[in-house]
């Protein structure tokens, strides 16, 4: 397994766990709360989730870099091709999410739901990027 594959697996797992918890809270108890409390709660949770993802990503990559020191700078044409293919699909998902956000604002949906749509698009795009990378590394490209 290359360092890039390990990195993609790790990041995907972190995003699924952290943002899984975020959406479980935000679309559950937070969504049912009154507007001012809801805005505050989702903003706080969004910032918390982003900070946790950043810290976990940095920590796990430091550990991976120490354990697999010889692989850290090993990057070749296959890695670049896989990166390009996964990024291209992720970009389409992100674009679709942005258009969905614009659509929601046009029909004057509450800011809370527009924000969730945009965050979901960002997270789904990143997870898709990671999953496609892992699939291409395993199945071949």
């Amino acid at each position, binding site marked *: 397994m290359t360092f890039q594959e390990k990195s993609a697996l790790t990041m995907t797992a972190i995003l699924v766990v952290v943002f899984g918890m975020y959406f479980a809270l935000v679309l559950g108890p937070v969504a049912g709360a009154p507007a001012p409390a809801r805005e505050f709660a989702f903003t706080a949770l969004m910032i918390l989730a982003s900070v946790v993802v950043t810290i976990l990503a940095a920590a796990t990559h430091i550990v991976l870099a120490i354990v697999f020191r010889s692989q850290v700078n090993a990057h070749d044409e296959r890695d670049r091709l896989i990166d390009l293919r996964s990024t291209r699909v992720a970009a389409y998902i992100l674009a679709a999410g942005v258009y969905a956000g614009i659509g929601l604002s046009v029909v004057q949906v509450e800011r809370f739901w527009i924000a969730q749509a945009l965050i979901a698009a960002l997270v789904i795009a990143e997870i898709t990027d990671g999953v496609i990378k892992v699939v291409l590394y395993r*199945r071949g490209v």
Partner: protein
Amino acid sequence: MVKPTLVTNRITEMRTALGMSQGELGDHIGVTRQTVNAIEAGKYSPSLEVAFKIARVFAVPLETIFQYPEVFPPARPTPAQRQRH
């Protein structure tokens, strides 16, 4: 499952004949051990540049190492075939 490439190769056979590891071949041609493994397993078709580097390592022509099946007969004669007639 459909294989990602129809290109087949004899790298494993030629590499082991020289007593070379995948990592050593990777170092010679500038790719990782995992990429050499993927090429040998038919999961990745290398760029022309890497293919030439592999051929140089084994000091043989490209087609001694890489093969492509005759699965797509051209509908019209190729320029080379036209020249022959």
